[in-house]
């Protein structure tokens, strides 16, 4: 192993591997360090991989990557205890090239992706924890690992160490995250024969469906549940902000079992065999929680930089794109021979000019708004269910009268002014 690299990337997830891949493709000497037995062995995701940002790294990746199903239908459920209001979109254009997104199983996908970086020339070292950045004269010049004589040096260190980025915290780029800045999510992979999945979700072999479930799936707490179709398994999971989990004193696995046995969900899982159970934190602080992302000899990418759009369940794509932007910056910095903060701040600028920060900025108040105003999940979802039930139950009441009754019951529960305030507040948070 040479003593010094052009770039050391800490973490072989989507952000780190993307950065390592592009740097290696451009002739840089890259060390990619992963703490797990193999890339993906520590990584968890609900399961949606977006085509666009992946394609920018590996054109036509769908022809060879280990993917589950292209998603052709996205459903949204507003669920009460014994009912659900549904809407969604299904389109065959998502089932053909170039596709929109895919379900994936990360342990397999991440290994395949990391191998692409290795094929491009990056050196991948597994089973190695980076314990700290080596800082000299205010500049990061390398890393210390938990291996004997485990110091390695580089012009730039890329921190792709995920939601628990102890390294960027050590550098003082951010304080410890608060419980309302992260979502605790648990999921299970449940094996189910392909034919059953196709029948239950109304799909063909190479078609997938995602369902996002709001309301009773989190017992009205701020969060969502999801049910995604793989080839011959389902991913079912649920998460809320850690602060909601604490406030409501819920055990996450009890919430998952509540969801799995919910009458709206249970029939879809019937006969399934649990194959894996996974817990993970999602950085959901959004725009206001993005830490400092560039310093002398160091940049921060992916979850470590809180780059997740929780409203649109986008994360891995932002991770990949941030990895790409970091790589472009490092390559330009090498040409200039300047790895100072002002040089690497180009990465920050690229990030803020991209869809990533623009989207996070758009929803900057969303988590905060919904956390502090629990009525959206706790009251409006059941109200919607009651309204639909009333409106579509034929009992001889004229429709105009029904409409009046529904409006009356909504304003009676919340009060007219409050309803108007609620609508305005929600609109402001997502506009």
């Amino acid at each position, binding site marked *: 192993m040479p003593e010094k690299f052009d770039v050391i990337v800490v973490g072989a997830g989507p952000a780190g591997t993307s950065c390592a891949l592009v740097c290696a493709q451009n002739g840089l000497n890259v060390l990619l360090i992963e703490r797990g*037995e193999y890339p993906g062995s520590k990584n968890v995701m609900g*399961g949606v991989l977006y085509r666009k940002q992946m394609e920018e790294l590996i054109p036509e990746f769908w022809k060879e990557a280990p993917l589950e199903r292209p998603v052709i239908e996205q459903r949204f459920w507003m669920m009460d205890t014994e009912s659900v209001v549904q809407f969604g979109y299904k389109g065959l254009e998502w089932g053909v090239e170039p596709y929109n997104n895919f379900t994936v199983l990360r342990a397999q996908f991440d290994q395949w992706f990391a191998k692409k970086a290795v094929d491009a020339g990056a050196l991948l070292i597994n*089973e*190695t924890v980076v314990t700290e950045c080596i800082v000299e004269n205010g500049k990061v010049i390398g890393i210390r*690992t*938990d291996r004997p004589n485990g110091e390695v040096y580089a012009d730039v260190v890329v921190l792709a160490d995920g939601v628990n980025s102890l390294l960027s915290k050590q550098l003082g780029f951010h304080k410890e995250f608060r419980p309302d800045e992260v979502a605790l999510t648990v999921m299970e992979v449940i094996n189910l024969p392909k034919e059953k999945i196709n029948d239950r979700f109304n799909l063909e072999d190479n078609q997938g469906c995602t369902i996002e479930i709001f309301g009773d799936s989190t017992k009205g707490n701020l969060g969502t549940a999801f049910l995604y179709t793989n080839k011959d398994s389902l991913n079912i999971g649920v998460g809320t902000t850690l602060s909601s989990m604490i406030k409501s*004193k819920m*055990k996450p696995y009890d919430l998952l079992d509540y969801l799995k046995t919910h009458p709206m969900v249970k029939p879809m*899982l019937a006969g399934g065999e649990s194959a894996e159970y996974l817990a993970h*934190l999602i950085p959901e602080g959004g725009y206001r929680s993005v830490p400092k992302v560039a310093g002398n000899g160091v940049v921060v990418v992916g979850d470590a930089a809180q780059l997740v759009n929780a409203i649109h369940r986008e994360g891995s794509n932002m991770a990949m794109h941030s990895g790409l932007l970091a790589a472009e910056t490092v390559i330009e910095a090498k040409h200039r021979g300047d790895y100072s903060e002002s040089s690497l701040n180009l990465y920050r600028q690229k990030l803020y000019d991209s869809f990533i920060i623009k989207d996070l900025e758009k929803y900057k108040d969303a988590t905060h708004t919904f956390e502090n105003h629990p009525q959206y999940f706790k009251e409006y979802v059941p109200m919607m269910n009651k309204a639909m039930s009333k409106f579509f139950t034929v009992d001889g009441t004229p429709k105009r009268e029904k409409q009046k009754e529904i409006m009356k019951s909504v304003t009676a529960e919340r009060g007219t002014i409050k309803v108007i305030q609620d609508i305005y507040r929600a609109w402001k948070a997502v506009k």
Partner: protein
Amino acid sequence: MSTNNIEEKQYLLRFKADTKSHLTVMDDDICATKCPDKICTIFCPAEVYKWEGLRMQVGYEGCHECGSCRIGCPYQNIKWEYPKGGHGIVFRLA
């Protein structure tokens, strides 16, 4: 069968446990005297923390390394490190 409790869920997983814990409750007195809820025993998704009357038992071997305890402990009383390279949980699927 689909699992219906945490023991069955944890049983699905592969762990390569280190001999040394990567999680440390720094002061059991704080748990005993200041923290009536012992909320980590509730929100930890792997039921790693169990209160034994005088001290917190830490079953680090079943930890998912999610980080919730470090962030969620109301007294920042948990020292949280990554397990040694190659150790800890090994996800095989998602």
